């Protein structure tokens, strides 16, 4: 019975809870049991709060019992929150030693909206330290493992959120995407991950890595579930100046429309820059298969060239570290978090220095140093300034492309999940994981990853990236939902169910 509950989608769970066929408490307990059974192997969670989750679930049940309408279409459904959003009742560590045990005095807007929607937050998920990485190996608390193959990474930085959803520990999770940290983990774990339009989801309470790129978004096993979650967390927030004061795009409607499977007249552009050398052949074959499915659904597929995308990765690795070097300056041991060397003999400056040396991991240090350098007098124009110009060119490439097509598609990541430890000593190889996802961060438009079957060379999940213009998130949902329905029909069921049975794995 409880195992069965964890196999349901969020929409199905909500339907049963709201119809009082089951209770939110029962659903929550089933997922807690699943976490207890598999998370020792997966290590998706950094913090679990069973008591708070059960009490939030009980509150939902109580409301329904009294005949109140559910607070939202997802009331009573369990969720895992990336440990980069502040929570008053749980620590917020960002996967860093620096914030070990830090309890924020306030909830992020995303956290608050989830609570108000009656969504049950089970706990906080593992991540690369301060969201810097593509494998979740940069967490100070140990790596998360990919449920499809425990010797492989779940992608990153939001590997914990993606793995938790893929392992059926939760039907929903929240991630953040600065250069692909929602989409790439989703691609390699066979889940759906969405980076909404920049400004579509409030960043208030999202511990910043790169302010102009960071965007929170949903992780789920189905496109509809992602859309339902998107509508719960999205929308204008007066506490975030970069939040867009416009209605949330009608993503749920688009997901339902798309599921009918008709893409007649939809113009799909294949980005010609994203294939060739460095791409795993199995990934490219899965991608081509996905494109032909879109064609079968009635889409008009054309080739689109976005030449500036070739420069996206280097531009990103100047802009993101520059902003990060400033955003992470506040971690100095003075007010909260780790403090090292305060023995009464040292001055503040030395304590700051010792704290930062001890509190940050190597990848964070690498980026802080890179960004500090790029912003320095005499280098600013050559690095940060040039990177911003590339950003403008990428925005123009997208604008030109969206004149011709409704959405752009590409593989989400050049390869399937790689082995744990395989790229830790090769930052450039690691950075290449985000090659296809970075342009949408730089331009701020919407993009998502939907499972596109498995690679025929290693049997691991591949993601199809669908990119849409800013504030046209619904277009990406429609195409993804249509594709998902067609793929499930052809495969005889969702890809997610093919994940190995983790309970039997004893490590």
């Amino acid at each position, binding site marked *: 019975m409880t195992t069965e509950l964890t196999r349901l989608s969020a929409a199905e769970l909500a339907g049963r809870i709201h119809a009082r066929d089951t209770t939110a408490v029962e659903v929550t307990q089933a997922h807690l049991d699943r976490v207890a059974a598999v998370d020792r192997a997966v290590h998706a969670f950094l913090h679990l709060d069973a008591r708070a989750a059960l009490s939030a679930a009980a509150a939902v049940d109580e409301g329904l019992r009294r005949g109140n309408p559910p607070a939202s279409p997802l009331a009573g459904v369990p969720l895992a929150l990336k440990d980069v959003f502040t929570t008053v009742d749980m620590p*917020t560590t960002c996967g860093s030693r620096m914030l070990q045990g830090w309890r924020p005095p306030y909830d992020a807007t995303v956290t608050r909206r989830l609570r108000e929607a009656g969504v049950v937050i089970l706990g906080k998920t593992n991540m690369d330290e301060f969201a810097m990485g593509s494998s979740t190996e940069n967490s100070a608390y140990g790596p998360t493992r990919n449920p499809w193959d425990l010797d492989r990474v779940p992608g990153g930085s939001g590997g914990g959120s993606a793995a938790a959803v893929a392992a059926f520990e939760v039907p929903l999770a929240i991630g953040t995407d600065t250069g692909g940290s929602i989409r790439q983990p989703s691609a390699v774990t066979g889940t759906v991950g969405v980076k909404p339009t920049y400004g579509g989801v409030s960043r208030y309470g999202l511990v910043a890595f790169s302010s102009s790129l960071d965007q929170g978004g949903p992780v789920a096993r189905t496109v509809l579930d992602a859309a339902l979650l998107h509508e719960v967390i999205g929308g204008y927030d007066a506490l975030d*100046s970069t939040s867009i004061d416009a209605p949330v795009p009608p993503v749920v409607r688009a997901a339902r429309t798309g599921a009918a499977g008709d893409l007649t007249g939809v113009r799909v552009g294949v980005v010609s820059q994203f294939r060739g050398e460095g791409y795993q052949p199995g990934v490219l074959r899965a991608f081509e298969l996905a494109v032909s499915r879109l064609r079968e659904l009635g889409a008009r597929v054309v080739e689109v060239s976005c030449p500036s995308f070739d420069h996206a990765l280097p531009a990103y690795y100047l802009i993101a570290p520059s*902003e990060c070097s400033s955003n992470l300056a506040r*971690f100095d041991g003075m007010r909260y978090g780790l403090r090292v060397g305060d023995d009464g003999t040292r001055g503040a400056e030395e304590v700051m220095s010792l704290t930062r040396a001890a509190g940050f991991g190597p990848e964070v240090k690498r980026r802080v140093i890179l960004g500090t350098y790029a912003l320095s007098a005499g280098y*600013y124009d050559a690095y940060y300034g040039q990177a911003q110009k590339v950003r403008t060119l990428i925005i123009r490439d997208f604008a030109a492309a969206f004149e011709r097509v409704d959405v752009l598609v590409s593989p989400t990541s050049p390869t399937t999940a790689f082995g744990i430890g395989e790229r830790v000593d090769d930052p450039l190889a690691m950075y290449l994981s985000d090659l296809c996802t970075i342009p949408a961060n730089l331009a701020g438009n919407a993009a998502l990853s939907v499972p596109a079957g498995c690679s025929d060379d290693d049997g691991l999940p591949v993601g199809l990236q669908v990119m849409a213009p800013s504030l046209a998130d619904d277009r990406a949902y429609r195409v993804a939902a249509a594709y998902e329905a067609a793929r499930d029909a052809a495969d005889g069921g969702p890809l997610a169910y093919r994940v190995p049975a983790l309970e039997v794995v004893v490590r």
Partner: protein
Amino acid sequence: MTAALMDYDEVLERFEPVLGLEVHVELSTSTKMFCGCANVFGAPPNTHVCPTCLGLPGSLPVLNRAAVESAMRIGLALNCSIVPWCRFARKNYFYPDMPKNFQTSQYDEPIAVHGSWEVQSADGSTFTVGIERAHMEEDTGKSLHVGGATGRIHGASHSLLDYNRAGVPLIEIVTKPIVGAGRRAPEVARAYVTALRDLLRALGVSDVRMDQGSLRCDANVSLMPRGSSTFGTRTETKNVNSLRSVERAVRHEMGRQAAVLASGGEIVQETRHFDEATGTTSPGRRKETSEDYRYFPEPDLVPITPSDEWVARLRATLPELPWQRRARVRAEWGLSDLELRDLVNAGALDLIAATVDAGALPAQARSWWVSYLSQQANSRGVELADLPITPEQVARVIALVGAGALTNTLARQVVNGILAGEGEPDEVLAARGLAVVSGDAELTAAVEQALAAQPDVAEKIRGGKVAAAGAIVGAVMKATGGQADAHRVRELVLALVSA
């Protein structure tokens, strides 16, 4: 160690001073620059703080519209252009009283640029100061260094941090290089800051209290050899906490730099610290490398785009500015240039004007501020404006005299009471029992009593010796403790005797 100083006349013979003044003004908006915390001075430490002004992870700034409008009004009053598009930047450096370890400040895109400002120095002459820019930024928290002798960080055993001030809106007003003031340079510097203070007060945007740090001035000084047109190396003097200190600090730096240059030395570009007690400057902490603030546009805020309509609306809210007021009162009160200048120098003009606005006649308002109140200010060693009495209170005292409720002598006592913090004019009057006893019933009784006590005098008056009435008036005044209106007493005496 006291630096050698060159004689002031010799300094001017050999060098031309070049000044640059940076004034920081804390705005008196009700909330802080980027959050909803109250902007108040003197609250218990760390009681007006929130995630945003503490820079907690995840927090974000939201710009205070009232602060932007204050900045725009200041810019307009300084004859600056308000730019159609501007942004904030991050100024990155580490310091414990700065919660984010960067200051959110405007950098190369300030909101107001290219103004000019005419200041009047003590001798009445004017000097035009160019305004480079006025930009917005946030204040830092406050460090209290404990355990040292000086209160500075050197020698302190530990430091306490108060973040109430963190995020308070600041406007920094930067002059263009002030060249050509020559001998008057220190005085021009003081006159400029004075005029700016008056302007900001008239705009109602700040408390402009130098003693509380809501108006802070950094003085950049360099010397250029006579005949040269290349600016010398400058120093920046901080901790200049009064108008007088502005003048002293500039003068001291001129003398010190001249002595260094004359002895073949070089001026070190550095921050110097002004010591109020000695009137000298000393080097701040020497930085081993030049500071690189790694400015870049603040990604957490969106650009500010003041429309023409918005600018016009704010321009319409500008009050009568000090120089406009000067021109007007000179005409209205019929003052000579000299009289006006004396009033300006005494810091009395705005006070008199405000007193007139509160209903007093100009001549009476002037008389109070330039004589009795000026004496009081002098004896207390404070600026006239800092006396604890308001123009409205002075106007009320004048009104009470006009109504016959107070004599001039009693009015001074009421003013003394106000200055002593005893309350409003009417309260002091009542509490001190200073009211002129003008009720005829009381007075008549007192006069009758006096006449009865001195029947011989009464007889003399009746006999036509009117001057003898003085004795009765004196007796009544004595009996009423001097509070009776002597003129009325005399009338009553004459009336009762002939009755």
